[in-house]
């Protein structure tokens, strides 16, 4: 027998409701019927209906008026209009309004049967597509943010809280803490996830170019503008605009950006056409924006517009328990990518990682593990595979002469490379003769 698909019939004529109900019940569908818009909306609140047969002409609210209300309640419902007198106008109106199809009374039973079968197929494909997208999103989510510390658990909670809203979010954290990953996580958990997230690195572009990047430009807007170009704001329509290093935006662009965020309208550089866009703003900075506001280099009104919901990502040194979790994750990631069977870190290597203070945060840790995977050998990563050493003997002094620091650094590199002169010279970016000279000068000996 067929799966229990559901059909809601909305028609003011009782005879139409009854005969269609009977027809569809014999086909094994769950059938509901409503004589007017109010009853229909009540039934839609009570349960989901896959297909909705909707009479165009009804007293009170007609089918064309009711359709957007139905879509508000259930955007995935497929609507088929029923009309007594087919006209091109009616058909166009119905289809423009997003209907799946329309039928004219009386309906040919064979046509109705095929129409419903096709509608159910379409609906199933839509749900399947959505499920697959969600599965893909789950996979990609798992690949992104890693952390088990109480601080990161709080960050995850904040991501979940803000993702479902359309609020502007400000992500703050030191360089290398993964601010862009957090922005992507918010986007991919939001209702805008099937639209793009457009990233713009505000710190990397001079003011004039940033303006053109954001707003686009018309042909001839400036020398070299040979073609019309869409800006990032237009590309982000429906999705999310991620403004990285937002603290670096110049004063003029700050003013333009504030206006766009407030009105969701703008014009391309050199153009007059008003373009309306719908996007959510997420921004990130490692600057002290409050200080910038006090110093007058960042507009206070823009600051308040952007700083609605703030997420602070703690530096890695403040969440030591995440270091090994992250290291393990990167170990697996690069192990797979390089086809290497190194699955663990030696206890000594773990100690080294935990003791280090990671000024470059997660990015530095990832680079360290990637490098260790290149030089390391199975079955595990050892301290000498890591790009730094933290033994007391070779710890870099906080102060001291340039010569003493040079000596310690050379010893570290030599030990990490088992006193392989060629490899050590390569890492130190000096030739082998110079390295031999320095070994002699500092009186270094292979242990």
């Amino acid at each position, binding site marked *: *027998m*067929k799966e229990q698909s559901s059909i809601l019939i909305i028609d003011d*004529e009782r*005879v*139409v409701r*009854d*005969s*269609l109900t*009977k*027809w569809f*019940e*014999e*086909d*094994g569908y769950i059938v509901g019927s409503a004589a007017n818009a109010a009853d229909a909306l009540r039934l839609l609140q009570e349960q989901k209906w896959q297909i909705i047969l909707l009479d165009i002409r009804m007293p009170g609210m007609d089918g064309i008026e009711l359709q957007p209300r139905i879509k508000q309640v259930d955007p995935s419902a497929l609507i088929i209009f*029923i009309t007594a007198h087919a006209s091109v106008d009616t058909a166009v109106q119905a289809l423009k309004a997003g209907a799946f199809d329309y039928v004219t*009374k*009386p*309906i*040919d*039973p*064979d046509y*109705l*049967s095929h129409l419903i079968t096709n509608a159910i197929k379409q609906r199933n494909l839509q749900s399947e597509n959505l499920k697959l997208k969600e599965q893909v999103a789950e996979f990609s989510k798992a690949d992104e943010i890693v952390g088990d510390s109480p601080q990161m658990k709080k960050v995850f909670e904040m991501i979940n809280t803000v993702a479902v809203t359309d609020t502007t979010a400000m992500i703050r954290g030191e360089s290398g803490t993964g601010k862009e990953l957090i922005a992507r996580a918010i986007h991919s958990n939001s209702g805008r996830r099937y639209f793009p997230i457009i990233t713009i690195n505000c710190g990397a572009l001079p003011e004039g170019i940033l303006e053109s990047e954001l707003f686009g430009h018309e042909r001839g807007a400036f020398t070299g503008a040979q073609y019309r170009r869409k800006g990032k704001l237009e590309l982000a329509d429906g999705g999310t605009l991620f403004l990285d290093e937002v603290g670096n935006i110049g004063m003029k662009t700050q003013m333009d950006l504030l206006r766009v965020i407030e009105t969701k309208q703008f014009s391309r550089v050199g153009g007059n056409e008003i373009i309306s866009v719908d996007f959510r703003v997420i921004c990130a900075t490692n600057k002290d924006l409050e200080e910038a506001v006090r110093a007058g280099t960042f507009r206070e009104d823009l600051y308040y517009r952007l700083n609605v919901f703030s997420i602070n990502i703690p530096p890695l040194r403040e969440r030591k328990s995440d270091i090994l979790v992250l290291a393990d994750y990167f170990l697996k990631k690069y192990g797979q990518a390089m086809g290497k069977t190194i699955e663990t870190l030696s206890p000594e290597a773990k100690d080294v990682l935990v003791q280090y203070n990671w000024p470059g945060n997660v990015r530095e840790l990832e680079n360290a593990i990637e490098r260790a995977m290149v030089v390391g050998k199975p079955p595990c990563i050892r301290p000498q595979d890591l790009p730094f050493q933290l033994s007391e003997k070779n710890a870099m002094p906080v102060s001291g002469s340039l010569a003493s620091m040079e000596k310690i650094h050379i010893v570290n590199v030599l030990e990490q490379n088992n006193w392989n002169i060629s490899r050590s010279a390569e890492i130190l970016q000096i030739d082998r003769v110079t390295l031999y000279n320095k070994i002699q000068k500092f009186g270094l000996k292979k242990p």
Partner: protein
Amino acid sequence: MPPVIHIIDAIPLSTRDRESILHSLHQIFGVSVVLSNKQIDIQKAFDTGRNQHNSTALLSQLLRHEIGKTDKIIALVGVDLFIPILTYVFGEAQLSGPAAIVSSHRLANRFYGMEDDVILHRERLEKEIVHEIGHTFGLKHCRQFECVMRSSTYVEEIDVKHLHFCAECRTLFQQFINDLYDSQG
């Protein structure tokens, strides 16, 4: 008491067709099948606007006849039937109810401009009668192409079907009969 199927022949059928139908129904449903002398007023269901007969109106007439609590009653008519929302129907039944109606009008080859075929016409009629009575026993449309409970919206589809239930529909029908006997103690 086992159910009885009452047939009102308003076509009227040839003796050969009538006997074949009575025999087939008895074989398939395993219950008594009787020709009824009850009447329906077909003209009352005529719709001048559509030049067809309203199937639901005829079904309402059938419901006024007194029959046993678990009995089924089916009218066979020669006129073209419709329900208001559809251009035509081959028949109509009450799902898990007592009444059904079947039209032979669109089952004849001459309706499609072809030479009549008495045997094919009888086979189509038998299949549609079994199909509509199947609904009165609670059976819904079946996905099996050859099952008599497969939905048919044109005659060629009726020709593809066989004059019997698929295994699943047969089980469902048997379950219905067993439940009926159980409820009667």
